[in-house]
């Protein structure tokens, strides 16, 4: 039954990566907002970029949790 376990692990890791969906959408929205802000007020580009990157990092963290879970399923379990 070992190969069944391997297959189930692969499925589990793939399902864990579904968690990257939300952060992807979130980062897209964030960059959209930042780009609009920069377009309207190009002088504020510096401050907007810094805050945008910070926001992206927070959203990205969720995707990385999903990645870590997937890696743990594949290589540790």
């Amino acid at each position, binding site marked *: 039954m*070992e*190969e069944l376990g*391997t297959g189930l692990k692969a499925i589990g890791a793939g399902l864990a990566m579904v968690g990257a969906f939300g952060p992807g959408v979130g980062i897209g929205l964030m960059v959209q907002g930042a780009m609009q802000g920069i377009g309207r007020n190009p002088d504020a580009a510096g401050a907007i970029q810094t805050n945008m990157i910070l926001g992206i990092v927070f959203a*990205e*963290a969720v995707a*990385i*949790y999903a990645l870590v879970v997937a*890696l743990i399923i594949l290589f540790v379990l």
Partner: protein
Amino acid sequence: MSANQRGCRSLIITIAVIVGIALFQIWFLPKVLGTGVTLPVITVPPEKYLENWPSPELDDFFVNTLLGGALMADIMVLIFAFSAGRWSNGWTKKIPGRGQAAAELVVDGLWGLTKQQAGHSPKVKTILFPIVASLFVFLLAANWGKLIPGVESVGILHCAAYKPVAFSGLPIHEGNILGRPVFTLRVSNALDVGTTGTADAYHRCESFISHHYEDVELLDPFYDAAVTHTTVEGDTLDSIAAQYTTAAEETMKDDLPQVTTPNSPINSGYITETFEGYHGWAPVEFHAEDLLALNAGAAAAPLTDAEGHTTTPALTSETVLKPGQTITVRNELLGYEATTFRNQLFTVAPFVRGAATDLNLTLGLAIFSFCLIQYFGLSTLGPNYLQKFVNINALGNAGTRPLGIVDFVAGIFEIVSELGKIISLSFRLFGALFAGSILFAVFLFLFGTFIPVAILFLEIIVGGAQAAVFAILTLIFTAQAMVSHAHDDHDHHDEVGDAHVDEHDGGHGQPAHGVSA
């Protein structure tokens, strides 16, 4: 020669180089040199350098590849710092050279950010800024140092034990065998990653390394698994061996074209032999002597003589066996049969691994950052800092402001989110860097060379970004901890009733506002 012709020539040369590199890996190496691709090391815990030091229980903890990676990063930082000091003549040069400008760029950028987020009180200047800058520079060195050629790739080559995945022991006449062999790492010595390998697996792999077997593959209908047989009336060890040899041969006949040219000779500690028969495939044979050795405890069928005495004869290859017992036809495939190119892979346990690909380092740094945050919060605000978590003030005012209870409950949630900082900081760094290593290893495994260089560029960006993110988040969390919300609440609470909610929300949204203003 026109520009188009030159471009055409460049394109053709580029494609030829890529194809050549790919062929070198997938055709030249196995066919000519008889060596395989090393399996990338994918393992979460660091490998120990020394066995049983300082004690057998603790040898995982102190001297391992994490220490190697961290020391390498430290040395890189020190070299950069001393070189920057030399380039700038001990920071006396007024017009900076290139190296001094780079060092000043890093420090100035970090100091500007620190000032912007946390102000420039003496404590920030003398404690927070040096720590944040050190975190950034150390992590940058650790993350970029892992991309230096040799790091994560130079180490001890050792065997990956062959572990078949199949329906173990399924006799071929009972159905199809669906499993395919896979490879796992099963070794446990110092600098050997994975779980324990068997002595047999090592013996096979080492004889493979020294003799470079090639061009012999095995069609094993049992996929290297153990094979057992349940005896029926009249079985002897001879008949069982013959039965399984025939069964194996029948399977091979169906699947393979038969040719008569002999294959290349095999020389190893096991056997010297030239195969004939099936091209590229070694035959699977079972011998009664091997079965006898494997089944010393098997019972022969009792014989009854004319006078009614029952005797049990000694076990030989021709003895009729007692029905219903289990005979081991073979345990696992041994010797040259198992030692073929396709079913052996090697792996490298590197001497130095990227420091941040180890959760121990990132977790340690995150706990350190957490302590730093709490220290700054407590030393700036005093005991009032704890009101952020257990809002006694709101509880005390509950009589006049019942909605203040919400603040109290929110404070409890703050505790969770505060502890979550440890997890978020450590796992973000670990996940990004470890995934980068795996990505690079997988691309190396798929394309060999040239194409993975693109991943290196990505890794440079990710490594720099993650180092900056760790340092900046520590800085921002600390700045956040030094701002008192309760104080603002108290000031405006009595005079402005309705405006309070907005003020409160604004304070949360822009934590650094209070300090930088």
